[in-house]
Structure formats: C-alpha cells, structure tokens
C-alpha cells in the first residue's frame, strides 16, 4: 500500500512539475532547445517511473507507530523553530536548547540532557568560532 500511495504521489508530482515547467516564460533570445524541454523530459520519466512503482509495489516498509511519528514531528518542529530564531537568540543559547531537546528525546535523563546540550553548544562555539574563526549567529549577547 505504501508504494501505491508513493507512486500516486509521484504521478501527481510529475504532472505538477510538467505544468510548472510549461509556465516558464520563453525569452525571445532563447536557444533552439529552450528552457522547457529538459524539465519536460524529467517530468515524463518521473511520471513513468512513478507509474511503475504504482503498478509493481515492493513489500510494505515498517512504519513507526503513531507516538513515534508524533515524536519525529515534534523534532522537526523544534529544528524548524531553531532555524527561525537562531539569529534572534544567538548561537550558544539556541543550540543548547535544541541539543538538549534532541538528547532528551533520544533517551538521556533530563539533567544529563541539559548538561549534554550545553556542552555540545559550548564546544561547537569554542572549536568552530573561537579556534577556527567560523561566523556563527551572534544574537543579542554576541554569542
């Protein structure tokens, strides 16, 4: 079933991709092939392979249970928020929070997770910023 859904989504993606490629505005200076041809070739092979996946599905993969999916979703939200607020919060603060969260969810007890998170953030800051001179998000306190 998973592969059937995957194939169907693939076909929709191919149709959408082909449609989006057709929206490209041709410039009057275009070469003979133009900017649309190659994306259209891609779309057709994409659609064809999706149809084959749909028609001959593999064995079902082992999907995680619902709580595990929620777990993954939560991690994605945390990482998205991290990316969004990195510049405002500053590197060390934001990274310590995100690393603490990940370490906790991977099974560290809360106190250890905080220690691990702070240690990860500080060690990356020291190695990459202070020693190697890489620019990191500065934030309100400058680190």
């Amino acid at each position: 079933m998973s592969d059937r859904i995957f194939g169907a989504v693939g076909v929709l993606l191919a149709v959408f991709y082909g449609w989006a490629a057709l929206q490209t505005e041709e410039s009057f200076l275009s070469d003979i092939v133009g900017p649309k041809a190659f994306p259209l070739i891609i779309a057709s092979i994409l659609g064809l392979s999706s149809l084959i996946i749909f028609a001959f599905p593999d064995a079902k993969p082992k999907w995680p249970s619902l709580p595990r999916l929620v777990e993954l979703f939560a991690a994605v939200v945390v990482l998205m928020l991290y990316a969004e607020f990195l510049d405002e919060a500053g590197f060390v603060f934001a990274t310590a929070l995100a690393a603490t969260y990940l370490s906790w969810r991977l099974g560290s007890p809360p106190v250890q997770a905080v220690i691990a998170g702070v240690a990860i953030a500080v060690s990356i800051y020291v190695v990459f910023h202070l020693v190697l001179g890489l620019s990191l998000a500065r934030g309100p306190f400058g680190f």
Partner: protein
Amino acid sequence: MDMFSNLYDGFAIAITWQNLLLALVGCFLGTIIGALPGLGPSNGVAILIPLAFSLGLGPTPAMILLTSVYYGAMYGGRISSILLNIPGDEPAMMTCLDGYPMARKGLAGEALSLSGIASFVGAFLATWGLIFLAPQLVQFALLFGPAEYFALFALAFATLGGVSSTNQAKSAFAAMLGLGLAMIGVDQQTGTPRLTFGDVHLYDGIDFLVAIVGLFALSEVFIFLEHRHGKADADDTAVKVGRLTPSWATLKTCTPSILRSSCLGFLAGVLPGAGASLGSFISYTVEKRLVDRDGTFGTGDPRGVAAPEAGNNAAAGGALVPMLALGVPGSGTTAVLLAVLLSLNITPGPLLFNHNPDVVWGLIAALFIANFVLLALNIPLVGLFTRVLMVPPRILMPFVAMVSFVGIYGISGSAFDLQMMVGFGILGWVLRKLDVPLVPIILGTLLGNMMENNLRRAISISNGDWWVLIQSPLAIGLWIVAIVGFVLPIFVGRLVKARMRSRAPASEWAADEAPADRP
C-alpha cells in the same frame, strides 16, 4: 617520466605544514566517523564539506582534508565490525563474517591490525592504479563532445542505482527528483526564472550542499529518533583488544589474498554504481572459493578479514578514477566529493588534468600521505578508536545535527536554507523508509545543469536535430552500456543483493536500518 615528475610536483604541493595537519586531522576524524555505527563515509564527508568550505580553505587543502576523511572512514568501518559485529558502514559488512569470530576467540587485536595492514595495501595499490588509469581515461574522454557527455551522464544515472538498489523504478525516480531539483532557479542560458513560483529565495537555485547535508546527515538523526536508539553499542566489558600485532605466519598466509583482493576491489571501484560494498563482497566471495579448503571461512579465518578490507579500500581508491577523469562519480561518497569540487568552482573531468594539475596531483600525493598516516594511526592507536564506540548516540546524534546546522549557516547564513535542510532531512527519512536510494538524488542535483547544458549545446550545434544524440559510434556505445547497466541489475542485482544480505550477520546494514531491531 612525465607521470613521476607530476607526482613529484604533487608532493611538493601536498607537503606543507598546513596540508599535513589537515591530512592528519582528516584521517583521525575519518576513522572515528567510520567506526561509529550509523555514520559512514558519505554522511561523514557531507557534514564536513560546508565546514571546509566556510573555513575558506583553498581547493587543494579542502580536497586533502575531505579525501583523508574518506579514506579514514573506509579504514574505520572495520573497527565496529570486528569488535561488535555491527558494520560501522556498509562496505565493512563483509568484515563482520570472520572479524567478529576472531574477536570472540580473543584475537581482536590481531584482527584489527591485520585488517589495518590489508586496508593499507588495498588503498596503496589502488592509488597507484589511479595514477596509471586516470590519465588514460582522460585521453579517451578528450574525444567527447556535448552529445557524448550527455550520454555519459545518462550512463552514470543508469548504472548508479545498479547493484545497490533492488528496484530500478525507484532509482530512476530518485535520479529524476535530483535532476528536477537542479532545474529550479534562473535558467543559465536565457536568464528566465524556472519553477521558482516567484519566490526570490529560489532564484539562485537550491544549493546542493543543503540537499546533501539534509538527506544524508539529518535523516540519520531522524532514524535514530524514530527508534529512540540512544544507548551505546559497546560497553566496557565487550571490548577486549588483546595483542596488537599479527604474527608473521598469519601475515604470510594472508599476503596472496590481500594482493588478489586489492586488484578485484580496484576494478569494482572503477565501475560506476556499486563502489566499495561490491568490492568487499567480490573479494570475500572469490577468496572463499579460492583458498577456503578446510571450510574455515566464517569461523574466524584471518584471510576472511584481510580480503574484504583490502577489497573495500582498493575500491575506495578505484572510485576516484571516474570521478576525477570523467567528472562522473562511481559511488555515493565520490558523488559527495564531486560536490566539493563543484562548490570550489572546479569542474572535474578531462580538462581538470590540464587546467588544475596542482589539484589532481596534490590530491594524489595527499592520498599517499593519508595512507601512511592511517597506517600509523590504526595500528598503535587502535585502542583509542575502540573507546569512541562507547559514545552513546543520545550525545552523538544531537552533536551531528548541530554541526550540520553550523556548516550550512556558515555558508549562507539564511534561516530559509536551514529550514530547507530540515525539509530535506524529512524527505530523506521518508525515502529511506520507502527504499528509494538517495545517491541518485544527490548526483542529479549536482549534475543536472551540466547535463542540460550539454544537451542544449549538442542540439544547438546540429541546428535542432535531436538525432545527434545517437549519431557518433562513441555515443551509441555509451547509450548501450547505459541501457545494459540499467536493465541488467533487474535480473542480476536482486540475486547479488539477496546473497549479500544472507551472508551478512544478523545485525543490519549500517546505512539504512542499523538501529532498527536493537533495544
């Protein structure tokens, strides 16, 4: 001879304090990355590329650092195979078969040092193979026009899925997804934006480094989160290394196996598609056929440890041949190394040898240096690396995730790119679940624009005649190889893969399912 003077120049470039230090650091990090289950050469190199890049290293030092990591990871993979029966990366799978039984007999130290020597010989011979073969291939590749290049790219995609994928429709899907992503952005030839939906962020296209780090590194973090696999694989009692040198007698019985396996592995590496996993598999199988008269293979025969290690390290060197000479990588990790060169504005391929001989020969010299460094690191210091296996993933994986963010932030500094990287991480997780190979996606995003340019150039030259793509005998030959390479695995690949899986120990492939069934 011309070649030796080139090599001499290469050493002159490679031997500076900075480069030697980079080689040392690269080898050290690489061995650690290879040893840790769940991190292999491709995601190890993927995490480090943005860093090498944002540290402002020049092309040669950056390549020296990253190829040292690559070679180091190939060495390191054997450590957890032997000690824990868990392959540190996919190519090290075959090493489990005899390595772990040796460790159980109390010969872990001997197995580690013997496989270290086998790795050294394999990689050393393969580097010589690279020196001899790559320039020949360059001569050949200079005959290529745009139509032939287009066919060559098609060949790379057709064969890359190859043995490592069971479902050719899925590897075709992956390749098209990658090519499709590469099309996003302003068209280089006409200047019109394509597939951007008016979003200014997308005008520059999607940076392939964002895709690589997301697909390879972050998806690994998600896999670990999914199984909440946070415990260390090793505990103190399990690791007993013992005597660290192989006896002369063992070494002597293994030498023919090592030499044969090095040649086989090198050839397997040069062929596009399978890379190091095939190298170690073929070496082990052939040695078993040839020398296993008493049925000792699989019960801790030293030759069964030496053969796959020589094979996979030789294949790692062999995979660099098509990458440097043709610009078409032969394996996942070399695809990632290709990304390094492209982001440094260097286009690999036949012209690289003429335009940037310093990069090529400096790199080759660096491979020799890395090899000796690795031998030195891996024999006496192997005890240090066995300690690394005790770092639990609940500390390691957050670190990997955060370093990935640091790398991408260092390049672009934009929240949009970071979020796109998280998106690629999820995509990578879903695709891995569905058994879709990730390497063709990477290769597609890397080569998409070059492939299209060659197509358009070929057809412009012929005034709009699409048949030009299959007119020269060379192009026809490439297309035939491409088609055979795509169709053949449908029949043969399933067989080989099934055998690889059934031969592999009960523990799983590090690359996709490593933490799956353990508590």
